């Protein structure tokens, strides 16, 4: 690529690149712009035959206040943070040792286990919700934080991604650790996981995005409002019969998606790196 890289910013190729990316980026952003625009408009301006991003009457304060107070959105967001943290932590806790065994150890049944991981990777979780609900009832965790976490503590995707990444870590490092006296579990936590940090961050983002936005399972598993996830704050303004309350709805949407965007922006370097080492090879 050096030949193309030598062209400066002003070359036609670079200008074309920026032009195309700005256009695709703008197209992709339209729904978001719409969302933010609606979130600062008063009800009377929400639907107009003519468009403007900025409202005549700035109504953002009202909408955002309503979004934050009408339903306990901050509480939902804290639940989201807590549940996502628990899920990611549990997933890493369960998946890293399994991925290590799959990547670096020889044992009977290894291929079977890996096949099971791949099949589980294909199964959509929604299909299993009813049996999982009954399972949750049997183990008596329904309507607790545990109910939100337990179906996800094992992530086939996590095992798969970690396994791929661990495979790129040279055997010699593990041998050195064994000679140094580390147990297999210590090797996982003190050597493999720190070395695979980018992959773990990448996986963490996927996992958090998935569970932060999910509504399907939480609505099944818990009924206590104090345990509900962030999208419920959006749903509070959505009603089939009476019509949607668009301003606060969009304000709530903006509030709910913002933490993810911030998290992604601050972790995106590791994110790409983590994938480079793992899934992609």
């Amino acid at each position: 690529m050096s030949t193309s890289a030598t062209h400066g910013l002003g070359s036609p190729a670079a200008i074309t690149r920026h032009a195309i990316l700005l256009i695709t980026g703008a197209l992709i952003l339209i729904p978001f712009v719409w969302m933010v625009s609606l979130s600062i408009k008063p009800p009377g301006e929400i639907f107009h035959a003519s468009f403007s991003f900025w409202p005549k009457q700035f109504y953002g304060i009202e909408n955002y206040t309503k979004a934050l107070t009408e339903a306990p959105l901050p509480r939902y967001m804290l639940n989201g943070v807590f549940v996502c943290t628990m899920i990611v932590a549990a997933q890493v806790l369960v998946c890293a040792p399994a991925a290590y065994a799959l990547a670096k150890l020889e044992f009977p049944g290894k291929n079977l286990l890996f096949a099971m991981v791949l099949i589980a990777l294909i199964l959509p979780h929604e299909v299993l919700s009813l049996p999982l609900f009954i399972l949750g009832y049997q183990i008596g965790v329904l309507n607790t934080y545990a109910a939100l976490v337990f179906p996800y503590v094992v992530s086939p995707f996590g095992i798969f991604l970690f396994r791929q990444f661990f495979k790129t870590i040279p055997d010699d490092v593990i041998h050195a650790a064994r000679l140094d006296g580390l147990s297999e579990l210590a090797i996982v936590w003190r050597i493999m996981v720190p070395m695979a940090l980018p992959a773990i961050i990448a996986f963490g983002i996927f996992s958090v995005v998935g569970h932060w936005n999910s509504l399907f399972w939480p609505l099944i598993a818990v009924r206590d409002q104090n345990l509900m996830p962030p999208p419920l704050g959006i749903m509070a303004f959505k009603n089939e019969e009476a019509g949607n309350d668009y301003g606060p709805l969009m304000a709530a949407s903006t509030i709910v998606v913002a933490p993810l965007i911030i998290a992604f922006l601050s972790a995106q370097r590791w994110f790409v790196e983590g994938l480079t080492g793992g899934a992609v090879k």
Partner: protein
Amino acid sequence: QEPIKLRVTAAPSNVSEMYKALATAFEASHPNIRVTLDTTYRDYNALVDATLRDALTGEVADVSIQGNNKIRLYVDRKMAVPLDAYFSEASQSAQSTLSSSVASVGRFGDKVYGLGLSVSAPVVFFNLDLVEKAGVDAANLPTTWEGILKLAQKIDNPSSNTLGAYFTYDQADWFWIALIESQGAQMMSADEKHVGFAGPEGLRAMQLLKSFGQAGQSKFDMPRDQVRQLFASGKLGILVDSSGSLGGFEKQAAGHFKVATAAFPLLSPDARLPAGGALGIVFTKDPERQKAAWEFLNFAAGPEGQTIIAKNSSYMVANSRVATDPSMLGGFYATQPNMKPVVDALPILDGWYAFPGQNSGKITNTLIDHMRSVTTLKVEPEAALAAMTRDVESLLPR
């Protein structure tokens, strides 16, 4: 004595504040009953799913405030408790304020299984600015379908992207029932083996839908949300919709255009209309708790509860006595002319019919599909009605 803990579930979640106020007021007047309120269900269907799931785990709520058309589901599954005994006892007492409208909404077969708390009725919305622009006086809004459609033609103006009228037809089977029952007909034969709309009433309904299609609706068939967006944008003259949308419309139209409502035209002296909205169902089988549950429903359907509902939502209250009595909510509704059509309709509001059998959900969708085929002018009313009759009857339990 231990206070009784009553678990109450209610939907939809966007009026959870209202339910909270209701529970608080109830607890204040009934110190020996505590209410555990659960209002996370975003719509009536979600609450049905949750209730049935709870049935699996044996943890059904004592009282549940559900959609008006859900009673049959719970009766079929033998979950709902008949309330006739309580109702007759209460209505015989001197100070009772319960009106018969409260019970009629919750009647299934010959028993009352629910107490109506809030209702919505099909009404006609007008964008007064467009109406006036079309040269019609706001005081003389049409009251018949013919008048409505004629006005629609005047308003309709493709060059300014303005649509004359739109008949919402996809709120489950609600509007189809409204069209049939407003002609005094029945949805089903008494033995529930055959549909009751295969005759002239059904055809009349279909023809009406076709007229709306011809008046412009066929060009812009829309999901409900989009229709409402269109009305809010001031580009739709007349909208047939649920009275529940009123609050939203008034807010969105504020400073923009004026909204007026008119009654859903009735075509027969014994016309009835299906009630949307919510009713309270008792699930608990424990006599002690049943009594407490009844107390709660009685409170909610009474003057105090109904006032809370009226003030905290855009729902119409179900109790006609409360709604009309000037000492209760009569004065309140007098200041809200747009609610008048609903208040007027209270006496003829009826339960929301639900089809029997495991295919009831499918039947609902079949009705919508055939209504759409007519409003979009794809199928002639006769053919559509015949197909509808055939399809529905094939889905009925044999």
